[in-house]
């Protein structure tokens, strides 16, 4: 088996703005692909339109930078027609969730074996600064000078609502975290949604500030890992416990406001493989604004039959059952008469 380095997947000179989160993500993607080790000839990277959708041009693999919003649909056809390919879909929040929202949910529902990357900077960058479907209510932009009057999508909710079996999140500047998530996404058989939190230095600078640097993440993020207790903080001094239908942050080994003292044994243990997505969704929706850490890592990772495998299995099954396998044999299945 060949071994590859990041440079085997690298091509060209990215044209993103200096400091754009896409640069960081691209470097992690190159590294992740080298570690995954699928030959560049067997990789297809398919994007839509937008700043982040330029990404395939910087890949030494097969790929397409297609049309706005359709990346998931195009990737679907690519994977179903040729399942040997490792197919990566790259979309921004506008491409993936606004114009491409329908394809996003249906790719998740069908569970096509795609690695679906959503680079979320909560803004339209390429068209120079309009609010996106992930911009928070009240967001001021060129197309919302008085603030938006609509609520945003939360990508995990869409993914889960569409019965997605995988959801992970990483911060673009966090290379180890991003690489780990990408490798897990590849290893997952089925549609694997990865939300990458990414800064737009020009039109939405600071949108992910709480978690964008290492120090911030230590305070404001929780790295979730299957089978491990959900603890966070510089010294892992905080944990998540379940109270009623909800989650709660507690400080460990100390008396909390409720008069109780909690230990590591009280802390919820993450179960990414749990079919029931209720608690996984709660993790995914945690936000700093509500006094919670932002969950990073693989939040949901449940095995399920993939669409492309099922298509192929059905073809084999029908081939074994039906007696006709060529066009000439197909003709013979009809009512035929002979004119002499």
């Amino acid at each position: 088996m060949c071994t590859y380095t990041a440079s085997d997947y690298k091509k060209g000179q990215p044209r993103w703005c200096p400091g754009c989160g896409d640069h960081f993500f691209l470097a992690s993607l190159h590294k992740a692909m080298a570690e995954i080790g699928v030959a560049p000839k067997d990789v297809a990277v398919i994007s839509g339109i937008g700043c982040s959708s330029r990404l395939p041009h910087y890949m030494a693999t097969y790929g397409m930078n297609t049309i706005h919003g359709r990346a998931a649909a195009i990737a679907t056809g690519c994977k179903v027609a040729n399942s040997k390919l490792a197919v990566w879909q790259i979309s921004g929040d506008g491409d993936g969730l606004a114009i491409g929202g329908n394809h996003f949910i249906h790719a998740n529902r069908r569970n096509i074996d795609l690695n679906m990357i959503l680079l979320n900077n909560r803004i339209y960058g390429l068209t120079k600064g309009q609010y996106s479907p992930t911009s928070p209510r009240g967001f001021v932009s060129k197309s919302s000078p008085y603030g938006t009057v609509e609520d945003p999508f939360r990508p995990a909710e869409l993914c889960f609502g569409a019965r997605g079996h995988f959801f992970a999140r990483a911060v673009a500047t966090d290379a180890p975290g991003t690489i780990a998530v990408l490798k897990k996404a590849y290893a997952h058989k089925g549609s694997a949604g990865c939300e990458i939190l990414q800064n737009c230095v020009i039109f939405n600078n600071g949108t992910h500030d709480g978690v964008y640097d290492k120090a911030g993440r230590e305070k404001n993020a929780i790295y979730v890992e299957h089978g491990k207790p959900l603890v966070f903080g510089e010294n892992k001094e905080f944990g998540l416990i379940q109270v009623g239908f909800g989650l709660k942050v507690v400080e460990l080994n100390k008396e909390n406001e409720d008069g109780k003292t909690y230990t590591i044994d009280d802390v919820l243990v993450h179960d990414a493989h749990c079919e029931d997505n209720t608690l996984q969704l709660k993790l995914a929706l945690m936000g700093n604004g509500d006094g919670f850490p932002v969950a990073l890592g693989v939040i949901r990772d449940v095995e399920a039959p993939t669409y492309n495998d099922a298509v192929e299995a059905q073809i084999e099954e029908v081939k074994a059952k039906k007696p006709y396998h060529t066009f000439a044999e197909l003709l013979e299945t009809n009512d035929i008469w002979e004119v002499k």
Partner: protein
Amino acid sequence: MADSLEVKERESVVVRFSGDSGDGMQLAGNIFSTVSATVGNSISTFPDYPADIRAPQGSLTGVSGFQVHIGAGQVYTPGDLCDVLVAMNAAALKTQLKYAKPNAAIIIDTDSFGPKDLEKAAFQTEDYLGELGVDPDRVIACPLTTMVKDCLKDSGMDVKSIMKCRNMFALGLVCWLFDRDLEIAFNYLKEKFAKKAGVAEANIKVIQAGYDYGHNTHSSVANVYRIETKNKVPGRYMDITGNKATAYGFIAAAEKAGLKLYLGSYPITPATDVLHELSKHKSLGVTTVQCEDEIAGCASSVGASFAGALAVTSTSGPGVCLKSEAMNLAVIMELPLVVLDVQRGGPATGLPTKSEQTDLLQALFGRNGESPMPVMAAMSPTDCFDAAYEASKVALEHMTPVVLLTDAYVAYGSGAFKLPNLAEYPAINPPYVPEEMKGTWTPYMRAENGTRYWAVPGREGFEHILGGLEKDDKTGAISTAPENHDLMTRKRQAKIDAIPVPDLEVLGDKDDADLLIVGFGGTYGHLRAAMDEMRAAGKKVAMTHFRYINPLPKNTAEVMMKYPKVVVAEQNMGQLAGWLRMKVDGFVPAQYNEVKGQPFKVAELVEAFNKII
């Protein structure tokens, strides 16, 4: 029933079966056409469905018809008006009479003309024949339901199942009228209901009863119509609808090219049968994906094409509106794709089950930018096979999306299809990038005919990125350079212009016609029949018919300018005429345009053309 019905020796006869949507008129019609074809008559059929799934029983809006034209020589259309009308109930008689010739024989089930039936069909009196002005002497009035019930009273079947056999009684009666060999019908039913012997047996019994009824009550007229067979082309045949023939054409092309067939589609009338048909044939490896919308149908096909499949997307006009964006992506990425547009009445939802040719200009021009795309149109139900095969061949060999136009009339209609021998069909050779170009190849390098090479993922050393942005001619990288865009635009156009297309063939009085009839696609049969009729009346008439509309055949201008008068006849407001005027300097044809959602009527064409000539 009068004794005055005579034996008529006829070149061709048209039979129309009509009844409620659930009355099985299509099955009766299909069996009748198969029986006739088996003895060597030529056939052409056309179903006429209501837009509603199943309107209330016995209502005027719920009537569906199935017309069969059988001929001694070649028949080109399902016929204008019928010689025999089968009306299974009062509503059918009322709505379908307009499709019958003034002297047509009419078969009715008197059991379905009770007071309630007449009320539902909005008759004012009980004298329904008088109200419609039908001469009772033309009517074969039989208590059909009573006789079917009687015939099957010992079968142990429930009433509902027995009622489903009424269509077979009508079929038996029609078979008697035409002196048809019932054995062929029996064999058909035995095969169709191979797993339900009881059903086959009951149907056979009822057909025989219908035949005997005709024979016994009208023994003085041994048979009413006799259609001899002439010009038989020996061979093995099947009855095929246009949609099925289209699906078969794609399957055949994929097999010939050695590629997986991928269909990305979304249900839409009248194209859905292609999705149905292809979905059945997984044993041939056909992959069909019923997508979330029309857009994904086309977009996923573009993805499948990139991945190395023969990619097809099927739809009707409203779907093409949605697909146009991804079609254009295939134009700039220069990937093979066949877009099937089974045209229906528009605009918007329009007339979903009816036929028009109103998408021609959409197919030619309905996209942003300079977006040249080959456009073809199938001429008849059976021609759909060759057209789909050729569209696939052009797409694969010239690395381009191709629009294949059929229409509801062609898609739903059927004809006798001589089983094709795939070995006799031309090879399909996509321009795969030669291995020796490794290291020097870039995505927009072209073969001599201007076609880009195809590098399917999985080949080492040919990794590349395509996309919707303009690319540099030499490097394949994104380029907005003015000269390069101009160059690439011209190269994409030149590639399409260079696609070899067969010359137009002129039929009829090709040397000295006073009038040339011009059409495209599904109107071939009607225009041909109109020409034949005019020539039989001593007129000098020729016709030519377009299958390839872009690029046009090389002799287009020569043919268009050769005759003193030209009429372009089409089921739109003049789209082909406009396209030809754009392409042929000084060409100003007469036009015959009709958008009624129904096939042309030969008699009306002849009348109109006689005024022009």
